[in-house]
């Protein structure tokens, strides 16, 4: 049954109110309102209006607006009141089932690693080890534990295999072999956008609109666009308006303003209670040793430590990820994620809830280590870095690691990529398929990492500006297609998967905004 819009709106309002009630913002607002009673401009006769005015002029109304806006951004729109919780997580049954099987497989792999190595999933750390860890908290990168026995729980290609095998049991495509079913790797009929729709959605990337990443290059005098854009950015920050910031960053962030703009959009203010929360997580890390810690450690060593841009921040990555794996507030996002976290108990405390340890939603850190690293270019205060990462994760990145039908989920992104390529570069697509080089096999790893580790950092940040600006990951699929379009000439000449990989091995010189703009707005369709 379709939900009528008014009903939907009131449900949404109810949900937002419920979430904000009892939040620290709520108590702060109450406190502010109480304090304002002492002010001369607050009169008993017009108490309600005066307090409201006061909250407006002191900027508290804006903070509330930002919080509401944040909630609307993060949580999906209300669905039917009779819908069970699973439907909020993921409306399609076969997707839920696939995600469930995938999780079981991961947990099984983790458990067998534990048994093999005779290491528990979680245990309390002996006191001397705790002291040692506390001492070297800021330089965990210099440790050299023996990690040879740990292996990554899965590789991106394993995940791709699972996605390739997804089928909708209710879908009967009948006799008609449509191109979509036969040429690409993804075989589920999700709705994805076409170029005209994308052009509308991403209209701010159009040819006639100034962009950072294009109109701030050496040849363009700054008076044409850059200077004005910086001024507008400063105003947005002065106003502290999340919604305005989100609109603004669609045209890119000036480097000096980016850290603050992202924090504003993600509604991160690094209050004392946030810093305290981070410190608590840190003490959890010190006190308890999790199996995944070794996996994190190994993955950081394999990826970020060897990266030309990120190696400098190796130690921050441990700090952020070890804390993240103990952060139960992340569990809230499972309400709208198709995934369910595996639960384990500290050794010897089976069944005792206060000793429950939730496994982080994605134990293949490989992918999301690289999503932390670029943030180190913007935030060097650990608790702020942590919060920004956590918010980016629960808003966006988790969708890259779980199976769902969401338009920003990895399944949709893969399908969007393949569809764009098939529709607009059919010759290339056909050629690559013929030589056994299905394009998705190459672009999957880019998308699953949101291009981190593949693009130069300044380009990556320009790309992520747009992820935040449009509140969607679809741009990753568009960029992937644009990269193929850009290298089409060379790709037409290759005759093997390996050769195709070689043509696309080095993306570090690419300029993302021109590529996107040309693909969306300047390609003859």
């Amino acid at each position, binding site marked *: 049954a379709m939900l009528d819009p008014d009903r939907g709106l009131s449900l949404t309002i109810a949900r937002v109110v419920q979430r904000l009630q009892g939040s620290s913002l709520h108590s702060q607002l109450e406190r502010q309102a109480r304090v304002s009673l002492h002010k001369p401009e607050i009169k008993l006769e017009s108490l309600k209006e005066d307090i409201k005015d006061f909250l407006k002029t002191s900027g508290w109304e804006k903070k509330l607006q930002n919080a509401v806006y944040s909630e609307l951004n993060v949580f999906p729109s209300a669905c039917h009141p009779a819908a069970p919780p699973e439907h909020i997580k993921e409306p399609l049954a076969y997707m839920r089932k696939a995600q469930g099987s995938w999780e079981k497989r991961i947990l099984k792999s983790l458990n067998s690693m534990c048994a093999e190595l005779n290491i528990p999933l979680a245990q309390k750390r002996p006191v001397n080890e705790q002291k040692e860890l506390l001492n070297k908290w*800021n*330089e965990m*990168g*210099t440790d*050299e534990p023996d990690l040879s026995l740990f292996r990554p729980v899965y590789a991106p290609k394993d995940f791709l295999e699972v996605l390739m095998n997804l089928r909708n049991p209710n879908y009967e495509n009948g006799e008609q072999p449509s191109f979509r079913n036969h040429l690409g790797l993804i075989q589920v009929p999700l709705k994805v956008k076409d170029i005209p729709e994308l052009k509308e959605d991403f209209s701010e990337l159009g040819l006639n609109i100034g962009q950072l990443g294009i109109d701030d*290059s*050496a040849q363009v005098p700054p008076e044409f666009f850059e200077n004005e854009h910086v001024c507008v950015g400063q105003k947005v920050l002065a106003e502290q308006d999340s919604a305005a910031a989100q609109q603004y960053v669609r045209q890119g962030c*000036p*480097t*000096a303003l*980016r*850290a603050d703009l992202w924090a504003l959009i993600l509604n991160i203010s690094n209050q004392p209670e946030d810093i305290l929360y981070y410190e608590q997580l840190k003490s959890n890390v010190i006190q308890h040793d999790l199996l995944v810690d070794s996996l994190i450690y190994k993955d950081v060593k394999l990826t970020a*430590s*060897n*990266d*030309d*841009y990120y*190696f*400098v*921040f*190796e*130690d*921050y990555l441990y700090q952020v990820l070890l804390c993240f794996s103990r952060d139960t507030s992340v569990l809230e996002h499972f309400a709208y994620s198709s995934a369910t976290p595996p639960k384990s108990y500290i050794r010897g405390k089976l069944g005792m809830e206060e000793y429950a340890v939730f496994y982080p939603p994605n134990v293949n850190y490989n992918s999301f280590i690289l999503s932390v690293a670029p943030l*180190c*270019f*913007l*935030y*060097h205060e650990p608790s702020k870095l942590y919060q920004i990462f956590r918010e980016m994760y629960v808003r966006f990145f988790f969708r890259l690691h779980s199976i769902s039908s969401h338009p920003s989920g990895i399944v949709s992104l893969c399908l969007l990529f393949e569809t764009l390529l098939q529709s607009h570069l059919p010759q290339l697509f056909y050629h690559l398929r013929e030589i056994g080089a299905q394009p998705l096999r190459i672009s999957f790893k880019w998308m699953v990492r949101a291009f981190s580790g593949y693009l130069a*950092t*300044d380009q990556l940040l320009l790309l992520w500006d747009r992820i935040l600006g449009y509140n969607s990951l679809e741009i990753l699929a568009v960029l992937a297609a644009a990269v193929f379009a850009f290298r089409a000439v060379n790709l037409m000449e290759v005759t093997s998967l390996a050769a195709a990989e070689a043509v696309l091995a080095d993306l570090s010189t690419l300029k993302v905004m021109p590529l996107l703009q040309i693909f969306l707005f300047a390609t003859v369709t």
Partner: protein
Amino acid sequence: FRIMAGKVKWVTDIEKSVLINNFEKRGWIQVAENEDWNFYWMSVQTIRNVFSVEAGYRLSDDQIVNHFPNHYELTRKDLMVKNIKRYRKELEKEGSPLAEKDENGKYIYLDFVPVTFMLPADYNLFVEEFRKNPSSTWIMKPCGKAQGKGIFLINKLSQIKKWSRDSKTSSFVSQSSKEAYVISLYINNPLLIGGKKFDLRLYVLVSTYRPLRCYMYKLGFCRFCTVKYTPSTSELDNMFVHLTNVAIQKHGDDYNHIHGGKWTVSNLRLYLESTRGKEVTNKLFDEIHWIIVQSLKAVAPVMNNDKHCFECYGYDIIIDDKLKPWLIEVNASPSLTSSTANDRILKYNLINDTLNIAVPNGEIPDCKWNKSPPKEVLGNYEVLYDEEMAQSDGTERDLRSRPGQSTGVKGSRARDSGKPVLTTWK
């Protein structure tokens, strides 16, 4: 009208592929030192011999070498400091505003070298300075060595007793220059990124000292220590914490051969702009350009501006946590060894662009040419300072008398975009 249609004949005593590949790709011909050569890429030992009084070497018009005869005025640690001190005093005497001092007696615009003394000659002066701040750390460096060799840190006078004994017991000791040391105030508050200390290596090409014409290579890099920085006195002996030289760091346990502990300058700029803001970042880079040019101006009067010479220097700069750059030293023979694949590419391109400027058109050179290459051949170099241009704009005088102005100097902001903007010096 080409007189000499032959190919350039080259010699080198530095067996490095980044050099040799560049010569070969130009179709130049390798010859021996005793044959007729046009281009000799020499080690610093060789240049000493070539230009020594005994050698009686006369270079002909079609011969170019890659060092100035007395480059050590800039590249020896003690002489560099001596020349800068002399330059500052001269400016002060002239009443130049560049030599302006603040209320503590420190130069406002020319304080870019840490307080330095020669040992044993200035030992007593050093002790006086040391006693003003007995908890400070100082760094001892042998004048004639490179790659971090022989360097150590001290925080007690007793640690350098050796130099005092010599100085007290003899009135005039002729020390062989190999045993001479400089002692500088150690910068114990370096800017840290990811908790680690780093320095900057920048390449500067000088084609002539009078008039001064110099170019800055846009692709410099940062060299990170592999170990977290700590000013703790218990780690003063740990060279992995303090010395950024790759020659030292590569022996550390955590040295990584993929990135070699190096960051591009553009990464540094991105990081600083993102975390500190654009104005202070621009100011920092402007200051770096400023101190390089000032160091060259300081030695220009004493340099033998031999027209057969050009030189590509490796400048080492440390940035402190107040974003002030300090000139640590200048290398006449920056390493051409490649520690990583990226490194090899960088150094190959560096030599390529250097040769394009120093040997125009890759043809047999004529040392009498005006040393003014067209803009197109600069490659990754940017004009840092061109005295002739500055003078023809009529602003050279202004630079000396009104440092507050944005001068007509063809300065540069070494942004990757390569936008040649007027530097807003002081």
